[in-house]
C-alpha cells in the first residue's frame, strides 16, 4: 500500500504546479475566459511542449506510457487553478478513444497530431433524450456504400467550437435504448452537413450543440468494432470521469483552504469569524469531504485499466463520482456561505470555484446517475447483499 508519487510523477506535479502559478492568476484566467476561444492556444502549445498531451497514453500509440495517475496529477493542478484549456475533451476523452479504438494509420496520425498539439478533439455523446446515459443513442448512421450517413444532434459538446474533430456515438443498429448497435466514429467539425450552436457555459467554459445532417463518413472513420462501441465509450467516459474527479478534488481543496484563510482574517463583532463554533464545525466538515473525496479519487483512478474488469472499474468510478458530487456540493455551498456577500461577487475568486464545482457535479453524469450505475455494476450476480466486489470491502477484508 503506497499513496505516494514516484519521482517522475513528482516532477510532473512540480512542472504543472509551476505552470499554473505562472500563467493562471485570477485576472489572467478571467481574461482568457472572456476571450474569443475561451482558452489560450499558446498555453496549449506549452502543454504539448511539456509532453502533457500524451502523458497517460500508451507508448505503442505514440504516448508517453504513463498511467491514469499522471492524468490525475495534471487535472488536480488544473482544478486548483480553474484551467480552461480543453484537456479533458481533447486528451482524456478524445485521446483515449483514438488510442484504444483506433484501427488504421489515419487514426494513429490523428492521435499523434493531437499529442503534438496540432489537433483538438471533443466527445459528442449526449443527446436531448439521453441525459447522461451513453447507451441511449438516437443519432443514426445509415450504411452508404462502404461508409455511412450520419444524422442527429449531440448536446453540450465541451469546447465543440474549438475541436477539429469529434468522436461521435452513433447508432448503426438496434433501437434507441439498445446496448448493441452503438458505434464511435470520427467526424470533422468542418465536414459538410455539420452545424453548431455555440454557447458559454455557466462556469466560464464553452460548449456547443452539434447537428449532423446527412454527414457522409467513410468506413475508416469508425473507431473499434462497428456496433460494439458501447464498451469503448464507457471506458472513454470513465477515463474522463476520473479526470474530472481529479479536477474536482483540486478545486475543492482550494475552496476549503481559502475559506479557512478567509474566516481567520475576516473580523465581525471584533473577532475573527473563524472563532465562531458553528463556522468552525462547518469548516471541519469541508475538510472531511475533501479528504473522503481524495481517498475515493485514488481508488477510482487506479481502477482505470484497459485490461481490468469493466464492472469493477465502473463500480469504482461511479462510486468516486457520486462521492465527489456530494462532497463538492457540501464544500461549494459552505464556501459561499462562509464567505458571505463576497462569495456572491463575480469579482472574487471563490464564486468561480463554486460554479465550476457545481458543473463538475453534473458533467459526465450526476450523483444520481452514478449511484444507479454503482448499484448496477455491483450486482453482477443479480443478487443483493452478497458477492458484491467492492474494493473497500476487500480492503477491510469483508467478502
Amino acid at each position, binding site marked *: 500500500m503506497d499513496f505516494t508519487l514516484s519521482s517522475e510523477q513528482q516532477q510532473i506535479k512540480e512542472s504543472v504546479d509551476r505552470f499554473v502559478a505562472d500563467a493562471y492568476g485570477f485576472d489572467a484566467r478571467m481574461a482568457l475566459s472572456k476571450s474569443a476561444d475561451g482558452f489560450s492556444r499558446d498555453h496549449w502549445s506549452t502543454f504539448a511542449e511539456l509532453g502533457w498531451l500524451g502523458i497517460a497514453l500508451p507508448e505503442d500509440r505514440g504516448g508517453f506510457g504513463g498511467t491514469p495517475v499522471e492524468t490525475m496529477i495534471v487535472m488536480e493542478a488544473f482544478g486548483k487553478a480553474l484551467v480552461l484549456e480543453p484537456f479533458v475533451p481533447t486528451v482524456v476523452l478524445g485521446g483515449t478513444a483514438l488510442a484504444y479504438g483506433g484501427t488504421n494509420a489515419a487514426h494513429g496520425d490523428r492521435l499523434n497530431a493531437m499529442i503534438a498539439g496540432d489537433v483538438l478533439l471533443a466527445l459528442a455523446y*449526449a443527446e*436531448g*433524450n*439521453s*441525459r*447522461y*446515459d451513453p447507451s*441511449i443513442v438516437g443519432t443514426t448512421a445509415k450504411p452508404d456504400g462502404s461508409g455511412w450517413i450520419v444524422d442527429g444532434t449531440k*448536446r*453540450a459538446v465541451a469546447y465543440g467550437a474549438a475541436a477539429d474533430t469529434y468522436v461521435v456515438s452513433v447508432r448503426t443498429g438496434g433501437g434507441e*435504448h439498445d446496448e448493441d448497435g452503438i458505434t464511435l466514429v470520427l467526424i470533422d467539425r468542418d465536414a459538410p452537413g455539420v452545424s453548431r450552436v455555440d*454557447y*458559454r*457555459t*455557466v*462556469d466560464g467554459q464553452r*460548449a456547443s450543440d452539434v447537428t449532423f445532417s446527412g454527414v457522409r463518413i467513410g468506413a475508416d472513420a469508425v473507431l473499434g468494432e462497428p456496433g460494439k462501441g458501447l464498451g469503448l465509450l464507457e471506458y472513454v467516459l470513465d477515463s474522463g470521469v476520473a479526470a474530472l474527479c481529479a479536477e474536482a478534488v483540486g478545486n475543492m481543496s482550494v475552496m476549503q483552504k481559502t475559506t479557512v484563510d478567509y474566516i481567520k482574517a*475576516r473580523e*465581525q*463583532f*471584533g473577532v475573527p469569524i473563524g472563532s*465562531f463554533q*458553528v*463556522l468552525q464545525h462547518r469548516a471541519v466538515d469541508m475538510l472531511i469531504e475533501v479528504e473522503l473525496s481524495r481517498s475515493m479519487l485514488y481508488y477510482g483512478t487506479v481502477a482505470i485499466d484497459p485490461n481490468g474488469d469493466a464492472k469493477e472499474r465502473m463500480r469504482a468510478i461511479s462510486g468516486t463520482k457520486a462521492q465527489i458530487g456530494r462532497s463538492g*456540493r457540501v464544500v461549494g*455551498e459552505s464556501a*459561499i*456561505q462562509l464567505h*458571505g*456577500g463576497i*462569495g*456572491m*461577487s*463575480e*469579482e472574487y475568486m471563490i*464564486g*468561480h470555484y*463554486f*460554479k465550476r464545482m*457545481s*458543473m463538475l457535479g*453534473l*458533467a459526465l453524469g*450526476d450523483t*444520481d446517475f452514478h449511484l444507479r450505475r454503482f448499484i448496477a455494476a455491483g450486482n453482477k450476480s443479480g443478487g443483493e447483499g452478497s458477492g458484491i466486489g467492492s474494493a473497500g470491502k476487500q480492503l477491510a477484508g469483508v467478502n
Partner: protein
Amino acid sequence: MDLSFSPEDLRFREEIRAFVAAELPPAIKHKMQAGIELERDDYVAWQKILSARGWLAPNWPVEYGGTDWTIVQKHIFDEELAVGFAPRSLPFGVSMVAPVIINFGSEEQKQRYLPRILSSEDWWCQGYSEPGSGSDLASLSTRAERDGDSYVINGAKTWITLAQYANMIFVLARTDPTAKKQKGISFILVDMTTPGVTVRPIETIDGGHEINEVIFENVRVPLENLVGTEGGGWTYAKFLLEHERNGTAGVAGSFQMLDRLKEIASEQRYNGSTLMQSGDFAKRIAEVEVRLTALSFTQMRALAAESATKSPGLESSYIKITGTEIQQAITELMMEAGGYESFDDRSRNALLYFNFRKTSIYAGSNEIQRNILAKRMLGL
C-alpha cells in the same frame, strides 16, 4: 380551528387577483415568468399602476397614502403579486426608508419624501451594509462630519440592490467617532446626484447586476437631511431591519419555482421515461413541497398571532431560515433536473441556483437568525 381564509379575505384576494390580471403589462409579466432582469422603466411603470390604485404602500398609515388592510390582507396582497408574476414592490423606499421617516422624521421630511415615493419621482436605495461590516452592522466606518450647515460624508457602502437606478440613498454613518459601536451612528438622507457619490456595479456569480457599491467622497449633505436625532441611527436601523425581515420567506414564489421544477423534470427524458416519473426524483421534489406546505401554514400561524398581538414575533426569524433553505433546495433540484441544459448560460437552471445562494446570507444571515432565536426564543 379553521385554516381557511374568511369570506372577506377571499373576496379581497379575488379583487387583488383581478387587478393584477387586468393591469399588469404583459411585457413585464413575460419578463418575470422567463426570469429576465427588469429594467428601471418596468419597475416604474408598475409602481405607477399600483400607486394610481392606492396600493403602492399598503403598510403606510392611510393619512400618508397607505391602506387600512389587516395583516392577513397585506400578506394576501404580497402573495397575489407573486402569484400573478407582478414585480415585487421594491422595499427600499416604501418599506424601508418611509417607515423610518413616518416614525422618526420631521414633518418637512414627511411632506417632501413620502409623496415623491408614491409618484416614483424618487427611487431609494439602502446604505447600511459596508464592505467591512457584513452581519456586524454596528461596526460600520462611514463617517459624516459636521461642517457648517452640512454633513460631509466619506466611506463606502456595499451590497446595494438596484442602486444603479436610484437617485436617493439613506445612509447609516458615524457622526460621533468617539462613541461606542452602536452609539454615535446617524441616519442621513442623501441625494445621489450630489458631487462625490459614485455607484460601482458588482456583478454577481449568476451573471446578474443587481447589487452595487456606493462610494462617498466628501459628499456634502444639508444638516436637515438627518432623520430624528444625531446618534439615534442605530435605533432607526433596528426598526428598519425588523421591517425588512418580514416577507423574506417567499412562499408563493417558491410554489411557482416548484411548478417550474416539475416542468423541467417532466421534459427530461430519463431511463426510458421522464425524470418526473422516476420515483426517487419525484420523491425529492415531494419532500420539498411538503416542507413548503408546512412553512406556508407556519407563516399563517405567525400572521394570526401577529394579528392578535399587534406585534411581530420572532417567528419571522425561523420563517426566513426555512424559506431560504427551501428556495435553495428547489433551485438545487432545478439545476440537477436540467442535466446538460443547466450548463448553457442561456438557461436559468444553474444561474438561479447560484443566485439563490445569497438568500441565506442577506437580510441577516441564517447563522445570525439562529443566534437570535437561540438567545431570544430559547433563552440560551
